[in-house]
């Protein structure tokens, strides 16, 4: 495609998974203990989507990447210090909650409205990328709702590979059972692509890329409009699954023996 793609990546932020995440009920409903003070990262699945988007844009001249993100803007600013260094993109900010206790419907609606409002966005060239799951709660529905709201019904979830074929058709591999893929071919955009882990490694931080991105990131953060997300279920109680670690440190074990032990464990 000579004119390239307009790729909008939907990616929220989540608390660093290494932190202790303890649900607590506050005046505004359920959230995580000390949520605002916990370090945050870009949702890992959204990260894969972003890296794939940047790679696709790099190989399709005329393309452009937007990252649409909802979260407390002060936290977003911190996360951007890392993410903005990875790949070139333009940030669109929704100043709203990011704790994982809001409903996918509300978030999807807000994201779709933000995408509609992006100046100069060509919907005929639009690819909406995102994670097929989320590290915050993993409803797995948000991206589908965004697509529906935007009127995009070509949707693919659990994607690990997207190839542009001659003539502009898109070949996608979606994860199915048993480590196999479902292969689809699409004439071209628009489409919604919910990424699994993709195939690309995380790019190293490059402050020079970051400096270029930050010229647009900071104004975007400054003009971010507050989003009030309402509705959703009432939770009676919320509990994080307790951590279970059974670690043995055994040195110099042959690889075959380790493999056998894992297989035995899987079969048990």
């Amino acid at each position, binding site marked *: 495609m000579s004119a390239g793609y307009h790729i909008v990546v939907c990616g929220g932020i989540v608390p660093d998974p290494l932190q*202790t995440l303890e649900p607590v009920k506050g005046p505004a409903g359920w959230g995580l203990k000390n949520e605002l003070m916990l370090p945050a990262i870009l949702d890992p699945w959204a990260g894969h989507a972003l890296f794939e988007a940047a790679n696709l844009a790099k190989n399709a001249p005329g393309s452009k990447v937007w990252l649409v993100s909802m979260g407390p803007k002060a936290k977003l600013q911190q996360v951007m210090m890392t993410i903005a260094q990875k790949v070139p993109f333009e940030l669109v900010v929704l100043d709203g909650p990011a704790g994982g206790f809001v409903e996918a419907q509300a978030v999807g609606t807000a994201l779709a409205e933000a995408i509609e409002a992006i100046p100069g966005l060509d919907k005929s060239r639009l690819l909406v990328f995102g994670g097929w799951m989320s590290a915050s709660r993993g409803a797995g529905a948000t991206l589908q709702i965004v697509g529906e709201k935007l009127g995009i019904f070509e949707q693919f979830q659990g994607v690990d590979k997207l190839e542009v074929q001659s003539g502009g058709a898109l070949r996608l591999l979606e994860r199915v059972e048993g480590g196999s893929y479902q292969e689809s071919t699409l004439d071209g955009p628009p489409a919604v692509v919910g990424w699994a882990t993709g195939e690309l490694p995380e790019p190293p931080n490059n402050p*020079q890329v970051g400096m270029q991105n930050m010229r647009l990131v900071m104004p975007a953060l400054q003009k971010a409009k507050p989003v009030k997300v309402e509705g959703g279920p009432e939770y009676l109680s919320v509990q994080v699954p307790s951590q279970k670690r059974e670690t043995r440190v055994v040195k110099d074990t042959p690889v075959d023996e380790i493999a056998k032990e894992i297989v035995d464990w899987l079969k048990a």
Partner: protein
Amino acid sequence: METLRTLPGDDVRQIMWRFADRYDIQMTVQSARSLARTLVARLVAEGARHTHEWTDHKAQLLDAFDSSGLTALFMDPHQGGFIEGPKNLALALVAFELAWVDAGAATCSLATNLALAPIHERGTPDQRDSYMSRCVPPQPGEDRTIIRGAFALTEPLPYVGVETNTLVGKLRVAEWEEGKEPILQVDKRGRFITGMDFANFATCAVDTDDPRIKTSCIVIVEDTDEGLFDRGAPTLKMVHQLSSTRDPVFNLKVPASRIVGGYTVKDGVIVPNYTHSEIIGAVFHRTRVPVALMSTAKLLSAVEPVIRYHRQRFRGGDAQPGTPKFDLGIQQKQDAVLRLAEVWAMGEAGASLGFETARLFDQLDPSEKEKDRIFSEQGIMGPKSQLSALRKVEKQAIELLGLEAQPEGQRDEARIEALKADPLVRYATLEALANILCPACKLWNTGQGANMMREVLALMGGYGITEDCPGFLFYKWTDCQLEATYEGPEAVQRRHLSITMTNEVFLARLRIWIEEFNILAATRPETGAGAVAASMELWLWTLEFLHRAKDPSGARLYHNRRQNVTFPMADALCWVMASRAQVGDVLELAEKGPENPIVAEGLEGTLGFFADLSMVQAARAAGECARVCAQMVYGFGPQDEAELAAFEALRAGIDRATAGAALAKDRAGQALTQVMIPEALDYPQ
């Protein structure tokens, strides 16, 4: 009572260390952190430190430094870098982040910068642009390989390291044809040279061995020059194994244009524009600060692993979740948390002092360039002439400090503006302070930091250094020992301080601080400002006493060669300077914290905790200062009774100023039992 909820995040640190509005630096920090906690941590975990040889395994670091932007950090944008202006704070933060995991990796990262530093500080514009541009990774479309450097200062025994004014490396004229550039013969055997395994060029300190060359200088040699560029034997070392260290041998012919800073020819003699010691002075002024912060990073990085260890390793087999035994482990006992609070307090003080010094050099750099320009126009060349010229502006510098200390509305603003507009006055005020803070942080952060790292290991249980002990703490402890020596051993720093701490501009500033901290003690007593003020007052009184007092043989007490006097006083000053900087950071957090929504959440607890640490450290510093001062006043006696009475009154004031310090430590210890820590370390063990 609100207490510390989570370990302090980036938002808090950016305020305390004053880079909340520097996105370029914030990104650099994230970049260095990401690298440290992935590749660097993996290298250590995989045993890369088990050999002092430079291996392909370790060499992955170089590519990672390039791809993450750290290699280009030292350069200006027109040379391929991305930060305009001075970069001392940025470099200090990168060293801090890398040393959080491994200080050898930090040293490796900084090695080429150290090689470039002589060129950066005193090189000609051509030398600067040429070498710095070639040290930047190639950009897309560029067909060249990156070059890396090594700084060859130290030499084979018996001159190793300590005596930088004595050089065995020699420079001679090899060829000098009429009307052509002279070709020089460089003969240098280096020792303990960092980065030598992969260096393409080296900046070598050499002395003249030829009547046609006037003085010592620093000269650049390249691996493609005619002659011998032998990387030499690897140094058999126990620490900083992730950096490369060898003893190279150079015997090369180079054009005279490689003399750093250039030269002039006078009466048939090559006169280097800068001697090697002039350049080294300018270089080590700045590069010592990141090294100081490497030790500090270790102390602060130890806090989280120690808490986790104390909570999880002493539960006992029958402890049930939800019980104090399960949740707190050994933290049920006060000793463990109190000792950790002391570690944290010292780490905070070291960070405050180190980062303040780095920020100060960011201010000093442009001022120094302006000073050099003015002196050059006036024909004032050479360090002695410059010192003499600067003495003339000291009075104005002292006047400026005095005027600025007066309350707004009552001071002569016009005169302040006039004095501030004078670049030499500005330089004199900044330089007097930098001359204290730089050696102070290098000496105190590394020396006392190494002692405190021993405490950290002791907090890891009986054997302490076991396989499941997280965070490479043993390596960190041993690395501290090198940092106390690297770029000037402790004696060099004490010597430096013993000369600069009597500078009248600094003493004027000290008197102002005493006034300010006394006022602060009334309004913010919880910070320990009162103890800091009392310590500064006692130290100053003792210094003045030492200048007028004599020992029983009639010899003056404060004398250049009397290191039993000057060195302990330098040590005492370091303790006080670190505490003073720490109080400053607490005040900054109190002022700016409410403006940041993330920091504002839980600010009361965070601030209270940092104030408690500050008080704990101020009391410790006051004790150290009082001990040293007492040794000075009584140790060389007998002295006049009136003098002793005056001293005793001041010392009693110090003791009284530490009121509440033990309570502060209790609170800090209690906070350590409550603070939320991550589920797991963010890098492999």
